[in-house]
Each structure stands twice: as C-alpha cells, then as structure tokens.
C-alpha cells in the first residue's frame, strides 16, 4: 500500500514522467491496436473469433527475425522484415483459412473459438520446435533519443516501428473505405447472402479478409521484434489484448478499436507504474470485465427491441 502511494506520488514529483508513460503506452498500444484491428475485421466480417491472433503476431516476428539475422549473407534489412512478414503471414492466413476457418465459418460461435485455439497451440509449438523457446529480438542500428533530461527516451527503432504501424493502419482503413474489395468486405460483413446475390464471391472475400488479418498481425509482429522481444509462447499476451480491445470498442467501430488499443496501452503503463508490473495482465483483464459489466448495465436500460 505504501509503495502504491509513493509510486503515485512519483507522477506528481516528476511531471515529465507522465509524458514518458504516455509515449510508452502509445507505442505498445499501437501494436495492440493493429492486432485488435485485424481481429475486429475477421470477427465483424466472418464472425470468427480468432484466438490464434497473437500467435500470428509472434509468427510474423519470427519471420522478420529469421530473415534478418539467421540467413547469413542473405539476411535482409530488418525493416524489410515488415513487408516480408506481411506477405508470408498472408500465405499462412490463406492456408489456415482453406484448411480450417473455411469449415467453421457459418457454425456456432464456440466452434471458431475452439478451432482457432487449436491453431494457436499448434502454431506456438511449431515455432518452439523450429526456433527454440528463447526470447529473440532484432537490434536496429539506430540511436535512442533522450529528452527532458533523460526521463523521456525515444528509441528511433520504436519510432520507426510505430510509424510503420500507423502507415499500415491508415493503409488498411483507406483500403476498406475506398477500394471495391474493401466495400465488398463491408457488404459481406453486413449480409453475406445478399452479397452473394449481387455476384460477390463471398468465399474469396472471407479468404481475403482472413489472410489480410494474418498479414496485419504478421507485420505487427515484425515491428514488435524490432522494438521489444518475442518468444513462441507470447502469443496469448497479444490475443488477450486484442480481445480486450475489440470487446471494449465494440464491433464495427474500427476507429474505436484503434483508440481503445492506444488507450489500453497507456492504461497498462500507468497501472504497471502505480500498482507494479506484476499486475499488468490483471489490469488488462479487469478493465475488460469492467467495460463488459458497465456496458451490460447500460444495455439493461436500452434493451434491443425484437421484431
């Protein structure tokens, strides 16, 4: 208890630390937001709750790590790992779609949760068998900026990563809004049968959406491995965060997902500073529970009318 109070006091003693926390939080949050964005996409369009989300992230991280540090003279520049992970995970997503998702898509909700859970543990174990259980990361040859008397530090690698995340998110948002495929995805999300009647090949749209999701996750992983560390079993961390963010923001509210992702990142950092880092995960899930219960209480007043 004393420690909590003194931690809390730090925030006032050193006001710049707030800035640092917010920056840290936004940087982590940007990655949560990416993973959550992909989840919101497959959840909204295909009604698939993908528990393998975080494992796609980690797989993307390993693609970038492997291609930029383990291939000897053929190693690529770490930043190229981001597009590479995007492409490779696109393929992985497509295969997973064809083998598994394809067949659970119009079934009851629990089927997709469990099927993707199966995919998740397989992915994690295969990564473990391929790359070992050590933590891995890529060191980018960039400096760290130290601002405000060293309290705020901004590793350029992280800045680049977050910049890339922003570009990726913006690209996907624009794509969804203005491209025809994007429109077809939105239409399919709202009424797949009607979309089929208009000549949209919904199976292709589903495959595309799921692959896109995997690709976004992969790119996020490639960014994570440059700025943080990965390990085969860290997927669950990102899966839980993605679910928290999507559940809190609500489906079909894609800008909301990004905002909630950033918000969660910041809140977790504050929570970790005040209550201790050991409570980080607990804080995330407790936030989720609170959001769910508050929303429930609201719904109790405005209940859905039935036809």
């Amino acid at each position, binding site marked *: 208890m004393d420690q909590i109070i003194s931690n809390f006091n730090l925030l006032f003693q050193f006001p710049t630390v707030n800035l640092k926390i917010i920056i840290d939080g936004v940087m982590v949050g940007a990655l949560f937001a990416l993973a959550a964005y992909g989840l919101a996409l497959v959840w909204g369009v295909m009604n698939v709750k993908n528990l393998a989300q975080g494992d796609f992230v980690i797989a993307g991280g390993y693609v970038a790590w492997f291609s930029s540090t383990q291939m000897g003279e053929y190693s690529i520049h770490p930043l190229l790992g981001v597009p590479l992970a995007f492409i490779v995970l696109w393929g992985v997503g497509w295969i997973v779609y064809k083998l598994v998702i394809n067949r659970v898509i119009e079934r009851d909700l*629990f089927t997709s949760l469990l*099927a993707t859970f199966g995919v998740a543990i397989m992915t994690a174990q*295969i990564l473990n068998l391929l790359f070992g259980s050590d933590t891995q990361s890529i060191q980018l040859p960039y400096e760290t900026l130290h601002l405000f008397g060293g309290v705020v530090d901004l590793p350029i690698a992280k800045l680049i990563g977050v910049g890339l995340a922003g570009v990726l998110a913006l690209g996907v948002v624009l794509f969804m809004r203005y491209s025809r495929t994007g429109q077809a995805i939105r239409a399919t999300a709202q009424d797949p049968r009607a979309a089929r009647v208009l000549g949209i090949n919904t199976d292709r749209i589903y495959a595309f959406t799921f692959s896109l999701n995997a690709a976004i996750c992969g790119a996020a992983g490639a960014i994570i491995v440059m700025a943080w560390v990965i390990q085969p079993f860290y997927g669950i961390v990102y899966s839980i965060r993605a679910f928290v963010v999507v559940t809190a923001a609500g489906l079909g509210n894609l800008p909301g997902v990004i905002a909630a992702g950033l918000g969660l990142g910041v809140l977790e950092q504050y929570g970790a500073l005040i209550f201790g880092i050991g409570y980080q995960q607990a804080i995330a899930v407790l936030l989720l*529970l609170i959001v769910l219960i508050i929303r429930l209480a609201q719904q109790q007043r405005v209940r859905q009318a039935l036809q």
Partner: protein
Amino acid sequence: MSKTLFYIAILAISLIAPFAFPDYKTQLATLWLMIIVSLTWDMTGGQMGYNSLGNIFFYGAGMYVAGVFGIGIAHDVGAYNNAFSGDVFKFTPTEYFVGLFVGSLLGGVFCSVSALILGYLLFGLRGPYFAIGTLGVAVAAGELVANWEWIGGGQGISLPVYPYDLEQGKDVFYFMFMGVGVALFAFLAWLYNTKFGAAINAIRDDEEKAEGLGIDTLRYKLFTWAIAAFFVGIAGGISGYQLIHFEPLESAFQTINLGIFMVVCALLGGKGTLWGPVVGAILFHVFKEVTWNYLLGWQWVALGALIVVTVVYFQEGIVGWVRRQKPEWFGIVVEEDTGARAKPTTGAQPAGAAE
C-alpha cells in the same frame, strides 16, 4: 432392464479399475477429474448455451480454499507459505484428513457462492462476450492470487503428503474423485429429465422466448452454474491434495490447459448430451496420455490437430454423431405418428433429449 444392467456394469468396472491397473491409479483418478469438469462445463455450455471459458476459476478456487483451510487448522498460513529457513511444519493425520475432506467441501461451497455472485454480474453477457468475460475472471484470479503473498504468491502452496501408506492414499483419491463423479452423473441424469432440464434447454435455444414465457431465466442460470461450481470446487480441492504442490498460474488457474480441455472433452463427446462429456473425457484423456508418451515434443501439435479436427470435421461430437445416425436410441422420433390421440397413459414423460 438392460439399461440398469449397463449402469451396474459401468459402476463395477469403475470400482475394480484401480485394482486391475494398480500402476495407473493416478491416471484413472485424473480421468474422473476430467469427467467431472467436462460434465459440469456441459451443464452451462452444452445444456444451457452459456459457453464459459472460466470454469477453471472454480477448480483453482476450490484448490486454494481447501489447501488454505487444511493449513489453517494446523498452522499460521502466512508463516507456513513464506517459510524459508529450516522450520519444518508437521501435520497430524487428523489434521490432514479434516483438511482434505472438510476443506474440499468448503471449496465447493465457496465456489457455489462465488458462482452466484459472478453469475449475477456476468449472466447478462451473451455468446462470445460471456466466454471472454468468464475467461477474464479466471485469468484475473490467477494473477491476483499470484501476487498474494499470504497464500504463497507465485511460489504456490505445498501441502503435506498422505500420512499413511501411499498406495492406500492413491485409492483414497481415486475413490473420492469417483464418488464425486458418480454423484454428479446421477444428479445430472435426474436433473436433465425434470422440467428444470427442459427450462435450461429452452434458455439455450432461445432465451428471449423463454423469458417471454415467464421463465425467470436468471434464477435458472445462477442455480445451474452454482451447482456446476460446487462440483468443480470439490474436485479442485481434492486435486490440490493429490498434487501436493500447486501454484496459481500453471496448476490452479490453468486457463489454457484444463480450462480448455474440459471444453474440448465436452465437444469431442458431444455437447448437450448426458454421455457426451463422459465419452469425450475418456477419449481425450487416452489420446493425451498416449501422445504424451509417444510423441515427445510434438504432443502439443498433435493435441492442437486433434482439437482442430474435432471441431472442424466432427462438430456434433461422437455422441451427437451417433444420435444423428440412430435417433431412436435417444427417443427422438423422426416419423410422424398419424394415430389419433388416445388418453395418455399416466406417468408419461417427455422423451428426453438428455440421454
């Protein structure tokens, strides 16, 4: 009647099993645990349509309540759990057995009460939100217990070893699990054939409609979950004593192992059926033990594949599949009966979908 014979045979096999396969007593006891957790999961998940991913919370809570109670009656809990230097804590056999029996029962009661409270908060959530909300409870509970030093924090709790002959100890655990399992099964076999069973099925099929018919759905949901929690809590308490040492994140509140396995068992066997979770638990357990023995390092990949294959290709589960092939075994009628209505014979009962 052949059905009675069948049940007697099953019961006899269960009673003989630990003596027929003395080397496998612990695995057999674990099998009963799997049956208990998947049957209880199915009460809400299969029969009532509320897919909880957080039932493992009751397992962990039962374990901790029973463990802390067992320690508490003999020693100072905080001191016991945080002892480092040479002090050795002893338990008398009486203390041990009171801890085991009363503690497990208390664990069950504690879980029932927490199910009522949690249910009150969470039962408004539907579909995936309920699943994720309950998962959140289990994860949060594990994290919080891991930070609670009085009960050992991340170190976990080490309970005393069975005070008498160890083989006898294994029998005790086996028969405790079996007793709970058999009681649970008998209870459910009866419950699913009452109007209560019909009502929770109605909630699963269309909750709004059920409310519209005047069914007080919250009360049914709470009651069902509280019973499920009671049995899981007891099982958790027994498990704690069987494991001897347990800790919060990987043994007590193990969300991604047992927490999911119970669901897989129920799905594999066929959710929403009385026998499904039992059949599923047996198959799953055997599969798991075999792959763990023979696919060193690859067992998880095999397990992931099993889960995927089950949900993708075998969705209604084994019992569900049999039910589709042989609906008449389950009292489901597919032909219409064109005869005129006769006076119904007394004692007529609804053809149970529960069998």
